[in-house]
């Protein structure tokens, strides 16, 4: 048995050892307390200055079903999923076979070796590392719950030993997480060292090693839902009405927590916000529309099924021109679909929600940093445009912690309340027509209820009306109003975040368009393709309606790949509907099995289509 420390140094020097660039996947049973231990593993790597990208792949269940946690350790900072697993921590007998099968050739399997497992259940081309976790727990602990929980910490300790994670990095996390609970700190650190010293005594470190680096910088590690909720606080939202639905629930809960911290009147202890857990999604959006009508910034957080239910109110918001913000944290559809899996499959449902002709702006954040920024911006846009604005997260961004740039706020920034006519303006003789075009941008003035004793009152309705809000079914009056709404939508283009262009190193006629949580995997895929000599200009869309640059990007390329996480190429449909583009140019790359898209998948799909194109060209 070699001396452990010496062997680590030997390994680090050993040719072929993977340093700070590998994927560890934990297979667990949900409800077993594994999530916090696995999270601790990921964050301890970050405490060593090495970026990680962690993704929780969990069931719609509280206890007993399979759950996975994938941690990508990536000094290069590739925060998307790569694809493939280098080390599987197989803690769930239910999924053993598929977990073992997922390991890359030459990869590693870590398992609980308390009970013997027949050799046929392993593979010849992987290295197997067994630690008798259950036996160790049974010896050390009496209570079943303790045996369960500390088993998780013991395997974190064992992995720290095998992968070269500094014990101090994990210990400091334990001290932070359990601050003030000394007994728990002591017990967890003991469990950690139980695993660590077993490995140091009995096993050699693996050729997958974490080494201290300086790759994290000042970035923060946060869920998109939490970031979006903080954005809503900074965007001046005061009314939140919501109904619990995965994967959006933690957004409303984070808003509640942030408001309790940041929005309490220090003198009276009273709340500068109102949060209502409504009876359903319909009431949620109804409350939002009522508050928006009355001059508050209000929002709801939901997912696809909730958007379906809210559709009638979204149409009212469009036609009666009432500000509202909806955070749609997308999950796998249709119907109840895959409640705990990710997709970008609500684009069409959100963009065109409602009967009759209607369309709604959408913001498409790519990471929690943008969830914060767009979360705040959405309220300015909703007030300015007097309509529903969607912020389209998905489960991958919303419910996973991502490394992202720190939040920033310009203290001189003012909330844009849009065109609101005040009592002073009315007294000065302003002609108030609630639906009257004034400035040529399609946006009329509104008054808040209660503004003036005799002027500015009007009757809000979902029926058609003239510019002075009086009921009318005159064809010309109706058309005039609908045309104004189109002008307003055009105005939205100039207010929404512009797309971001990333040019290839050198000329190319190929382009790729993508958005949202696909972004980090796309960035890496572009590097992989570049290494193969395949060049693509890349455009990341950040909002709907599409900026003119999006159409000119398509115009100026011969072939444009559209990478989306849905089956029906919904972005492609939107582009074809909204722009005058040649559909033959648009080549879809679709990933919709509910897991976050990987760099390997994108690069593979684009490379194979480009190769086919080359063969056809040669023929």
């Amino acid at each position, binding site marked *: 048995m070699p001396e452990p420390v010496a062997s680590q140094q030997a390994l680090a020097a050993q040719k072929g050892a993977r340093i700070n660039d590998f994927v560890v996947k934990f297979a667990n049973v949900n409800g077993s307390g594994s999530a916090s231990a696995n999270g601790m593993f990921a964050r301890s790597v970050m405490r060593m200055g090495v970026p990680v990208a962690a993704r929780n792949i969990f069931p719609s269940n509280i206890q007993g079903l399979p759950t996975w946690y994938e941690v990508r350790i990536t000094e290069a900072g590739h925060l998307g999923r790569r694809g493939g697993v280098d080390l599987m921590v197989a803690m769930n007998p239910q999924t053993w076979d598929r977990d073992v099968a997922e390991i890359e050739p030459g990869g590693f399997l870590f398992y609980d070796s308390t009970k013997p497992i027949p050799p046929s259940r392993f593979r010849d081309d992987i290295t197997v590392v067994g630690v008798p976790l259950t036996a160790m727990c049974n010896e050390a602990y009496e209570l079943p719950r303790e045996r369960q929980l500390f088993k998780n910490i013991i395997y974190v300790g064992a992995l720290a030993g095998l992968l070269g994670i500094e014990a101090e990095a994990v210990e400091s996390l334990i001290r932070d997480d359990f601050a003030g609970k000394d007994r728990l700190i002591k017990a967890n650190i003991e469990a950690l060292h139980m695993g660590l010293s077993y490995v140091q005594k009995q096993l050699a470190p693996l050729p997958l090693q974490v080494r201290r680096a300086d790759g994290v910088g000042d970035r923060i590690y946060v869920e998109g839902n939490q970031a979006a909720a903080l954005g809503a606080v900074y965007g001046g939202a005061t009314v939140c009405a919501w109904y619990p639905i995965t994967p959006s629930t933690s957004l409303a809960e984070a808003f509640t927590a942030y408001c309790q911290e940041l929005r309490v009147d220090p003198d009276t202890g009273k*709340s500068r916000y109102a949060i209502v857990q409504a009876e359903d999604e319909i009431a949620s959006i109804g409350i939002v529309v009522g508050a928006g009508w009355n001059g508050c910034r209000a929002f709801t957080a939901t997912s696809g099924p909730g958007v379906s239910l809210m559709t009638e109110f979204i149409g009212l918001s469009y036609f009666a021109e009432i500000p509202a913000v909806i955070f749609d944290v997308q999950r796998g559809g249709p119907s109840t679909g895959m409640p705990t899996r990710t997709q970008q499959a609500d684009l069409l449902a959100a963009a065109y929600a409602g009967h009759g002709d209607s369309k709604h702006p959408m913001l498409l954040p790519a990471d929690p940093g943008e969830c914060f920024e767009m979360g705040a911006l959405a309220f300015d846009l909703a007030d300015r445009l007097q309509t529903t604005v969607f912020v389209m997260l998905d489960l991958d961004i919303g419910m996973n912690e991502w490394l992202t740039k*720190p939040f920033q706020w310009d203290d001189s920034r003012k909330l844009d309340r849009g065109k609101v006519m005040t009592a002073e303006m009315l007294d000065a003789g302003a002609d108030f027509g609630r639906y009257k075009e004034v400035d040529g941008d399609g946006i009329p003035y509104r008054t808040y209820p209660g503004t003036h*004793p005799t002027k500015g009152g009007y009757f809000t309705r979902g029926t058609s009306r003239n510019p002075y809000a009086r*009921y009318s079914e005159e064809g010309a009056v109706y058309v005039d109003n609908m045309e104004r709404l189109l002008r307003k939508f055009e105005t939205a283009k100039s207010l929404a975040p512009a797309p971001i262009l990333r040019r290839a190193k050198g000329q190319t006629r190929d382009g790729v368009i993508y958005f949202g949580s696909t972004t980090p995997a796309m960035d890496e895929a572009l590097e992989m393709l570049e290494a193969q000599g395949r060049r693509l200009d890349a455009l990341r869309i950040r909002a709907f309606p599409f900026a003119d640059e999006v159409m000119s990007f398509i115009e100026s390329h011969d072939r444009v790949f559209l990478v989306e996480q849905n089956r029906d190429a919904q972005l492609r449909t939107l582009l074809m509907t909204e722009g005058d583009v040649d559909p033959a140019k648009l080549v879809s790359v679709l990933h919709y099995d509910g897991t976050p898209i990987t760099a390997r998948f994108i690069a593979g799909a684009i490379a194979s289509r480009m190769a086919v194109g080359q063969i056809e060209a040669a023929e």
Partner: protein
Amino acid sequence: MTYILKPQLHHPKLPTNGLGYTRRDYEGSVSTLCAGCGHDSISASIIQACFELELPPHRVAKLSGIGCSSKTPDYFLGNSHGFNTVHGRMPSVLTGANLANRDLIYLGVSGDGDSASIGLGQFAHAIRRGVNMLYIVENNGVYGLTKGQFSATSDRGSKSKRGVVNTDAGIDMVSLALQMGATFVARSFSGDKEQLVPLIKAGLAHKGAAFIDCISPCVQFNNHQGSTKSFDYVREHNEAVNKLDVITPRDPIHVDYRPGETVRVQQHDGSILSLHKLNDLYNPNSRAQALGYLQARQARGQIVTGLLFVDPAAGDLHDAVGTVATPLNQLGEAELVPGQAALERINASLR
């Protein structure tokens, strides 16, 4: 509908209230409902109640759903903001509006189709949250705008104009409101303005969820023999338990009734509800007794009207949520946006 504008001229000697407004200042557009519709009598009662209460008309927000009753907010308080929302969803919109500005007075007007069928859930939940509002259901037991289908408040056994007998049990909105925790519950009849106007005044002055079920016969589709919501039927079966006078803090108090026959209740805004008992047994301070009484009388085919329950010390949703006194829609950057310094603390906690 609103394209019919009322002439603005009126007699210079019309009486004014303490704010200098005439009754005309509380009117709206010309009604487009059928001649003789009970709903128009309710609109007239609302106008009179607001005039007598001396409410600044623009400080009332009137909200409704969809249906004949929901069109009526256009026909009163023409200088107020109104919101004709979507079918059955007025309660949620009113809840949101109320959260945004606690200083306005909220009047929700709905019908039995709007509140007892599609909107039953929202009705129940707005009540149980204690939204500070007066919620009036103009209850005619029929779908008028779509020409005569039964609504969910039609009594079992009642007959439609075409002679069809209703086989479903009717929903009693008053019992439901009591069970959901409404803190002011009344029933009245559009044909009895003397009873209705004080109830509307008391309901507007009440803090918390106030509900009035106002039976309002549909002259076109539900005023025939065999209907239990016709003028004749309601008059014959009406059993008023009390007669209400609302005394605002400004009014001199004078006693019309012998002591022992009158119960006085002071509401949150200082107004006093003077209740003259028409039934010695009836106690409007007990939710449980109210429910029992209603069910017993209903079984006998009687329609109990009057102020059925009031909790004068009730709180509202704002009390529950603990909001600041300033309306939320008047808070600005300084109160709402925590700034970069707070963000830096948050950033540090996320590393």
